[in-house]
């Protein structure tokens, strides 16, 4: 006998034949995207160009991850180029800091440019299941 466990959102009939994965809160056969770890770092000073903050890990492989960075303007940026500032009035085009997270089998690396004066950031790191 095969068992299944399907939990649909409130208002969605679990026996409806036309459901999509997004209609379910939980559906067996659809793997949930599990968070293995979450870490926050506060008041890190970017004093070199670039500055790399390193966080060791013990997964033994490069894990699936994502990171966010809060810059001095208070806005939280996704990882990538020209993360700060979001306000163009103080932006120096194409020389603004980029936030570049990297990972290998031993460490996470958070790399930030410093085109001008020192500045502080906060970082949130999510580690998800499955090796990259």
């Amino acid at each position, binding site marked *: 006998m*095969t068992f299944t*466990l399907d939990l649909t959102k409130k208002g969605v009939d679990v026996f409806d034949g036309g459901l999509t994965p*997004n209609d379910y809160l*939980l559906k*067996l*056969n*659809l*793997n*949930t*995207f*599990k*968070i*293995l770890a*979450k870490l*926050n770092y506060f008041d890190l000073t970017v004093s070199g160009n670039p500055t790399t903050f390193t966080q060791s890990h013990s997964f033994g492989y490069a894990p699936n991850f994502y990171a*966010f960075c*809060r810059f001095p303007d*208070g*806005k*939280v*940026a*996704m990882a*990538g*180029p*020209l*993360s700060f500032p*979001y306000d*163009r009035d103080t*932006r120096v*085009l*194409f020389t603004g800091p980029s936030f570049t997270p990297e990972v290998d089998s031993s460490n996470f690396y958070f790399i930030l440019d410093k085109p001008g004066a020192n500045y502080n950031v*906060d*970082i*949130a790191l*999510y580690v998800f*299941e*499955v090796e990259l």
Partner: protein
Amino acid sequence: MTFIIALTKPTIDIFDAESVDDFDFHSAYDTLKYEAQGLKTVVTDQADYYDYDPGYPPIIPPRYYHYTVDTIEHGLEYIPYFAGYFHLSGTIACQCPWAFGDAGFFGYQSVFADDIYLYFVTHFTSTSNSGNVESDFSYRIFKNDIGL
């Protein structure tokens, strides 16, 4: 006594599970939880340019600088896990932030968050100082508080 709820993939005996990936669900691990998703079109009126560069005609034409920010209110009162994508064309989208530069022209699109809003930023140069330009974004907001 500690109880857990664990569901393995259909072909895996729960007592043989070795990896977190063997489980479709495991109560020991948090997951991302949907809050909202949607599309956001940011409209830039090119008549409202903030800077002008005469360029070097005929090699580099004059350029107008445009910058527009629009928001949605997520209402969570904390900074949620989020994702933003910029639609480069009708069929191609890329994860924000997206940046492009060539021969004096640039384009930059990104999504930021604080505890009230998502901010959709479009910043670009063009040769025009009239008409509207639409920048299309997709976004996902999860209930998870990123803790910043």
